[in-house]
């Protein structure tokens, strides 16, 4: 079978050119972030040089960043909060998701509906009163204010994600286990959970990313430099009035972006399949 002559041209125009345009649009900001953080200031602000390339790469910006700020503390805060909240959300999400997928009880439907609705409630709708709740709990200006509030938007997500996974697992196996003397919760932990691992990993990772990226609550509840998370510390601590230290800002942005990008690249298969499989099942 011979290829039609127009086919390659058609593929170029219909596939590769638009794809290249989309890739450029999506990735150029990251390239610019990367390249800006490895330039020294004279090169960074030199309008006559070729600005899209580095002639003398340097770690100056990172050195300044580590010397002048507590960036490691911010990274640790982000990690601590994200890890803890994704674990909490994961556990509560597994429990609630299993209950909704398998058990029949009065109020189950209402609870399902409520989780779905809370999944949609934007954080900007309630951040003002939540600040006073956090204050009354004595948690203002601590990272614990984030640890308790982040699960409110993570749990609905995890629950819905896991309902879809649990429902795809055949009931027979856990029923057998229960006939053999396993309790319902024992069967859930020993039989169903291992089979839902892809869903569990995906939900945990996605929760981690959502926590790592959260901005509104962290900006509202926390004011001390040392308690801030990366996503808020970089734009608020590194911009002082009208002075923008772009090299340091980009270096810090890179440091804050790399952890989620790495996490994501390790589990990309889970991620893409998880998104395409479950994201819209709710």
């Amino acid at each position, binding site marked *: 079978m011979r290829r039609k002559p127009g086919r390659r041209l058609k593929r170029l125009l219909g596939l590769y050119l638009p794809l290249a345009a989309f*890739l450029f649009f*999506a990735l150029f900001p990251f390239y610019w972030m990367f390249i800006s953080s490895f330039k020294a200031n004279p090169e960074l602000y030199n309008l006559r040089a070729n600005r899209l390339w580095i002639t003398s790469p340097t770690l100056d910006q990172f050195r300044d960043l580590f010397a002048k700020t507590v960036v490691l503390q911010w990274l640790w805060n982000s990690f601590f909060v994200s890890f803890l909240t994704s674990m909490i959300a994961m556990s509560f999400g597994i429990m609630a998701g299993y209950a909704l997928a398998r058990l029949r009880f009065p109020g189950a439907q209402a609870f399902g509906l409520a989780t779905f609705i809370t999944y949609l409630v*934007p*954080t900007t709708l309630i951040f*003002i009163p939540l600040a006073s709740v956090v204050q009354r709990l004595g948690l203002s200006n601590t990272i614990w204010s984030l640890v308790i509030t982040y699960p409110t938007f993570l749990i609905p997500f995890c629950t819905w994600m896991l309902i879809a996974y649990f429902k795809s697992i055949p009931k027979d196996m856990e029923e057998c286990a229960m006939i053999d003397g396993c309790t319902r919760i024992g069967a859930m932990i020993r039989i169903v959970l291992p089979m839902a691992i892809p869903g569990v990993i995906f939900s945990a990772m996605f929760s981690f990313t959502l926590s790592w990226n959260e901005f509104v609550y962290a900006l509202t509840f926390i004011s001390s430099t040392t308690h801030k998370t990366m*996503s*808020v510390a970089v734009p608020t601590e590194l911009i002082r009035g009208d002075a923008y230290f772009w090299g340091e800002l980009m270096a810090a942005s890179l440091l804050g972006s790399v952890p989620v990008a790495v996490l994501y690249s390790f589990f990309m298969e889970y991620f893409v399949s998880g998104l395409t499989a479950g994201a819209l099942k709710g």
Partner: protein
Amino acid sequence: MASIAHAERPSGLPWLRRFTASEALTGYFLISPAVFLMAVLLAYPFVLAVWISLTDRVLGEPGKFVGLANFLKLLQDSLFRQTVWNSFVYTFSTVLLKMVLGVILALILNQQMPCRNLIRGALLLPWIVPTSLSVLTWLWMFDSLFSIVNYILLGLGVISRKVQWLGDPFWAMVSVIIVNTWRGLPFFAVSLLAGLMTIPKELYEAAETDGARAGRQFWHITLPLLQPVIAVVVLFSTIWTFADFQIVYILTHGGPINATQIFATMAYDVALVAGRIGEGSAISLFLFPALLVVIILLLRYLRRE
């Protein structure tokens, strides 16, 4: 008797077995942590938001009940009216852009190509990376003096003089729209791709044998079958964009002269910067009708399927 009953039980404490034997009790036990957390930190703050919006509370003082005064004051405030208008412009244009570009990108990604997974992964990056940090990069890209966007556009001859991306009211709105589209496009593309993959190949083969060209196949097969997914994605994105905060907060802070002020940024400025918490709460609550409409439409859509 007791010993026989005990022997019959294979394992576990008696009360635990009785407890877990009941589906209802197990169900309530399993959902209780989630319910507790969401009641205290989501439902209660929402009620509190309504209450605060009916008071003249300012930072440091509890304030007193003033009825709908905050809402009435806002409706007459020209800045608030502009905020409402900006929010609609911002939401409508970005959702439209994301939808159209999202369908195109999904159609591209659905084809066979080398390194397909790598490309899909790379295109998802804007959605994964912390928005506040990537928006800082855009802020640097739109810098009044050193804008790399201007550098590239001038170099290519697309523009003849520098665009003041964030300094000009019109271009500031264009800028936040571009960045929001950049950030949200991957979600659209991946969700729509998932929708595309569920369309049976046989339909296209049948259309092919009937002589339908690619364009007609798109309008008569792809789009109608993709429509439910498009609707759901559009509704999700509408509420997220309407309530968006960080892109505008970091890129323009609502400026210049409030040209990009939207609900959430104005609520933040009024409540936490100016300290008028009652009024700020009222601004936030204007998001609620939009949320309600989206929820009702979504539930209708999902129920029909």
